[in-house]
């Protein structure tokens, strides 16, 4: 009886391992890479399915990003039109102009200031009424106000910043009449936030759907190969040893998927660029339609790799309970 009780220690020393030519982390790493590549070759169908799923997933998300970035860029460009105008009922002298100019430019948020003289204003007015010049007969420039047109810095084009700017402007002595298309600024800004909100919502939804599909695909492909996991465990492979080739495989699948999806996206983009002017009213080449910035492309590569690796990692956890 006592003999049995003594045997409480629950550790088994590693059994002797003969000839270890491929040992150590380096040797093992080489083995894992070789194993991962052989696995891909021997499970080509499963790998095509996984890479295909990751490709389509990333393509959908990156296509959305591409459209969104260009849309947001276009919308933001419209904000150039956010402009504050200060009116004067007399022509300013050159020295008065430069005094006002300096004071306005000293305000935070001011980007550019342009003086519009009465003559200039009349010229613009005539331009606008081209074809109906007779209406302006007898109108002289001194019925029109002179003005300063102020462009704002990008960060100051939101409704509140514009209002702050305008009230600061009104505190400059001599400035009384200020116009800034209040209503337009407000509507423009709420449209911009709407575009961004939709982008986040649709994008978030896409990302969740894509994560769900990819993780389920990986789970299924690993489930299809559970006998491999079982046999490895049966002959005494440690969990790390069983997992490592699968994780490498997942990483490679993710990188392959992201490479293909970026290539496809670029193909789509180029194709659109060169064929779209036939059915669009604008020429996309000259309209500044851009491809994804570099950091987004790097981001897609990283997401692909992470997707493959983490997908395999979490799926393996479900099957390896040895």
């Amino acid at each position, binding site marked *: 009886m006592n003999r049995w009780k003594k*045997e409480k220690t*629950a550790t088994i020393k590693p059994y002797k391992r*003969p000839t270890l*030519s491929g040992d150590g982390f380096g040797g093992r790493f080489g083995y894992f890479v070789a194993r991962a590549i052989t696995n891909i070759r021997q499970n080509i169908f499963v790998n095509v399915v996984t890479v295909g799923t990751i490709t389509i997933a990333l393509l959908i998300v990156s296509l959305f990003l591409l459209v969104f970035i260009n849309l947001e860029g276009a919308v933001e460009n419209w904000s150039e039109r956010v402009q504050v105008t200060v009116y004067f009922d007399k022509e300013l002298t050159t020295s008065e102009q430069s005094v006002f100019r300096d004071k306005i430019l000293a305000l935070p948020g001011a980007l550019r200031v342009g003086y519009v003289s009465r003559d200039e204003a009349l010229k613009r007015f005539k331009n606008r009424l081209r074809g109906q010049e007779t209406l302006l007969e007898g109108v002289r420039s001194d019925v029109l106000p002179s003005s300063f047109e102020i462009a704002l810095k990008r960060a100051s084009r939101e409704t509140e910043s514009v209002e702050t700017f305008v009230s600061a402007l009104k505190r400059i002595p001599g400035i009384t009449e200020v116009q800034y298309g209040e209503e337009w600024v407000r509507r423009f800004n709420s449209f911009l936030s709407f575009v961004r909100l939709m982008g986040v919502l649709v994008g978030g939804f896409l990302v969740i759907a894509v994560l769900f599909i990819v993780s389920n695909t990986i789970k299924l492909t690993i489930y299809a190969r559970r006998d491999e996991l079982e046999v*490895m*465990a049966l002959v*005494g492979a440690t969990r790390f*040893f069983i997992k490592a080739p699968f994780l490498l495989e997942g990483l490679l699948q993710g990188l392959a998927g992201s490479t293909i999806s970026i290539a496809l996206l670029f193909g789509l983009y180029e194709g659109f660029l060169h064929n779209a002017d036939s059915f669009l009213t604008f020429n996309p080449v000259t309209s500044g339609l851009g491809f994804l910035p570099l950091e987004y492309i790097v981001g897609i590569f990283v997401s692909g790799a992470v997707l493959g690796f983490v997908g395999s990692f979490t799926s393996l956890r479900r099957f390896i309970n040895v």
Partner: protein
Amino acid sequence: MIQLHNVSMAYQQDASALNNVNLKIGKGEFVFLTGPSGAGKTTLLRLLYGALAPNRGQVLIDGQNISRLPASQIPYLRRSVGVVFQDFKLLQNRTVFENVAITLEVLGWGKADIGKKVMHILKQMGIESKYSLTPQRLSGGEQQRVALARALVNDPKILLADEPTGNLDDANKNQILSIFKEANVRGTTVVVATHDRRLIEQSHKRLVVLNKGEIVEQMEKGKNGDDQAL
């Protein structure tokens, strides 16, 4: 080599698969484990390679208690225990050679050594000419010999077999049996769970009979014809 002391095991609360089993199998012994379906044969074997832990009692392999072995230690236990099954559990998308090589890859052997050792054992099993085929192109008997090669290639201390000849004809059964005996002669402790009367009678080895999770009968090395009473 193998000792079970008051081992009880239940998959569910009320139904016990093994009940207070005491068993001692010496180094180099050859033991048949038999009994009706549901007697607990498979359960007992699974305790021996760490696929299950007993609810009560102790399981000792080579003097070490494995009944509360942490999961991280189980692989090291399995490196000295070979296991074969009725359904072989071979990887269908790998060749015979690769199936057997797994055992040595796990141990960290180098390529050249693996090549030599695997071909050597395939020759012993009489299937060296099939090394480049995948399992589905082999007969059942050949597949079981591949599984045996995988289990024996690193000269394990213990070989466990669960219904190893269940799907095989007589000629193949005899071949498999002689492989067990050869391994046993070389010093491996062999435990075979089987229903197969003829296999047991032919081989004149120690017999342990289980029924409803209890050992109901034990017979030392039967002489020819003596254990007909079973």
